[in-house]
């Protein structure tokens, strides 16, 4: 038998992949330095980050002052967060009396407690939460925040801060949703006059900036009412903001209505359902479900837009922080104030937009394109 010792009886162990294809170096090469243009971009980006990040972190954290009672106590040269600390309660509640602030807290808990289950898919008892939020909650909120039935009345002039911002945004959205549905249905109605009126309403409100609408609310609305009627500035703002967002909401809902296949309408009619039954039982449940991301996006826009009440002299979150930074004790802290407000708004808006993107992905059945 010939000597076959040179034939291997077991396979050669796998060679390790070339060092340029695995590990951190390969990742760097593929993602950051894949060509001269990319390398140049990477270097420019690193330089930019080097210029921005260390000074910012130094200002915001390492050199920052956290304690003190006036701007003079902030001596380390960084941010003066002491201002936020001292004024924090005011930023949250405005001038709401300290003894009554539990009412605001309870309102926030009830609001989030009933709104969040509505936004989670497949959460049990959605119907009850919706009924609570849209029908029972408004009078409860009014009693809690304004007073009456044994609770001390807190004048709306004392409302302010993040609390007022939340009131403006949530009340407008809750009022504008049913209004928007009505106008969206009206815009798709077969009745020409109703359709025309709805189109005119929607386009008029969408064509003008919110600031002019707010001016209208604060200057013109009192003129439109019978002489002698005088009502609250916040209520006037709420009315015009609700109409404003109802116009946007109507367009969002219309998008949902258009996405429902015609067969659904025809099937409902073939079953002998009346218009309202068809809408309430067949069309709207489907249409509203697909427009939840759109509604959330409208809410984000509205939430950011509540800051505009600054021009009509309401003390919302931004205005109250700005007012604090112009107080003689805290002159020079305007950057800190703006950064704080920006951070709070960012957390709210970013989490909501993440939610709406996730939902959009889940609702996307892949039929389009």
């Amino acid at each position, binding site marked *: 038998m010939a000597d076959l010792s040179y034939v291997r009886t077991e396979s050669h162990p796998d060679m390790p992949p070339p060092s340029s294809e695995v590990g951190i170096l390969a990742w760097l090469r593929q993602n950051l330095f894949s060509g001269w243009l990319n390398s140049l971009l990477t270097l420019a980006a690193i330089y930019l980050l080097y210029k921005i990040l260390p000074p910012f972190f130094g200002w915001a954290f390492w050199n920052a002052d956290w304690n003190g009672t006036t701007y003079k106590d902030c001596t380390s040269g960084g941010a003066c967060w002491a201002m936020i600390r001292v004024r924090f309660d005011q930023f949250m509640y405005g001038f709401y009396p300290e003894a009554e602030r539990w009412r605001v807290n309870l309102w926030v808990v009830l609001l989030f407690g009933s709104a969040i289950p509505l936004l989670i898919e497949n959460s049990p008892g959605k119907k009850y939460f919706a009924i609570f939020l849209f029908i029972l909650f408004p009078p409860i909120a009014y009693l809690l925040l304004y007073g009456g039935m044994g609770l001390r009345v807190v004048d709306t002039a004392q409302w302010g801060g993040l609390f007022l911002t939340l009131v403006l945004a949530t009340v407008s959205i809750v009022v504008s949703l049913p209004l928007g549905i009505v106008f969206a249905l009206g815009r798709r109605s077969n009745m020409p006059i109703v359709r025309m009126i709805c189109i005119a309403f929607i386009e008029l409100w969408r*064509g003008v900036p919110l600031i002019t609408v707010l001016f209208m609310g604060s200057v013109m609305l009192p*003129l439109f009412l019978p002489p002698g009627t005088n009502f609250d500035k916040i209520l006037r703002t709420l009315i015009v903001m609700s109409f404003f967002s109802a116009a946007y909401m109507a367009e969002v809902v219309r998008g949902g209505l258009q996405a429902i296949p015609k067969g659904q309408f025809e099937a409902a009619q073939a079953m002998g359902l009346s218009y309202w039954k068809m809408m309430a039982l067949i069309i709207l449940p489907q249409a509203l479900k697909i427009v939840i991301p759109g509604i959330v996006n409208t809410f984000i826009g509205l939430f950011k837009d509540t800051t505009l009440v600054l021009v009509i002299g309401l003390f919302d979150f931004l205005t109250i922080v700005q007012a604090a930074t112009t107080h003689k004790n805290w002159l020079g802290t305007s*950057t800190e104030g703006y950064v704080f407000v920006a951070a709070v708004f960012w957390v709210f808006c970013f989490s909501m937009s993440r939610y709406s993107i996730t939902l959009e992905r889940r609702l996307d059945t892949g039929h389009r394109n």
Partner: protein
Amino acid sequence: MAASSETQGSTPRVSLWNDPQKRSLIYQAIVVVMIVGFFGFVINNTADNLEKRGIASGFGFLYSPAGFDVGMSPFLTYEPSKATHGTVLIVGVLNTLLVAITGIVIATIIGFIVGVLRLSPNWLVSRMAYCYVETLRNIPLLLQLLFWYFAVLGTLPSKRDSISMFDTFFLNIEGLFGPLPVPQDGFWMILLAIAIAITAIVMIKKWAQKRQDETGQPFPVFLVSVGLLIVLPLIAAVIAGFPLEFEHPQKNRFGLRGGMIILPEFAALILGLSLYTASFIAEIVRSGIQAISHGQTEAAYALGVRPTVTMRLVVIPQALRVIVPPLTSQYLNLTKNSSLAVAIGGAEIVAIFAGTSLNQAGQAIEIIAITMGFYLTVSLLISMFMNWYNRRIALVER
């Protein structure tokens, strides 16, 4: 009562309530009555209120003297002593349009760049673009404007020690000062040269298209166009002896005077508006490019088309169709958002006309109506233009 006369004409078996056509007529009649009643109520109340407060209505106030300074009026000379509220309105409209157009141009450029960077294979760059988008679009615009105006531009040096760049540009708390070009005799030659250059470019483009259709030979139209646009006016300028002089800002006791000035209010407004809107445009551009099926790119590569050309001739023309409709609404938003200038003391229509003029003249209804009418007109014009453009590029579709 109107209903009973209608029943007589209809077939007896269908009751009025069950005939959809008649029913919708009744509904509409009710709606019309309600709307007319509502407006009658409002108008009646308004007339009562105006009478009680002794406010005369009408547009006569547009001719009465305004007597305040508007701060910025680059297109017509504004003299506080002679100006009427009508002048204020015109200045406000022009300034708003200037802000809107400048903002739209800058926002589009930044937005497209960031949107493309967001898709870059470079991990770091795409992450940074993502951070830019997510930070700016989740912070209220008003807050950003205040930040730029008070926290950034408010820290500029006082007018006594302004930052000087090459002794031509000066930056201080009153604004950015630069030389103002003043055309001299013979400037028409340069304008003529520019006109000739543009005509030539149009003709070359047509010719190049025709040649490429016939022979397949491309022609570097872009480079030639840029060359023509630079060379022809330059030759004209040499012949006419450089008929353009610059008025430099002069230093005097009160700071800098003369020259061209960009006010900090204007700068903050443009910065805030365009950076904010750019973050939305970047997302639109990104999703537009991603909406183009990858097969298109692969097919172009398979034909041997280079990546940059693929982007320019295959991907972008198709992506534009997805991009234009949402882009229109961003342009509209930017125009409407320019009204936020009122918070930083800008000089556009809401700030000077619906703000100062309203306080002085007291004609709330007329002024707010004019302001809203202006924004409605602009909104309609922009959407008409973009719809036209959208139809034009949609024609490319099979």
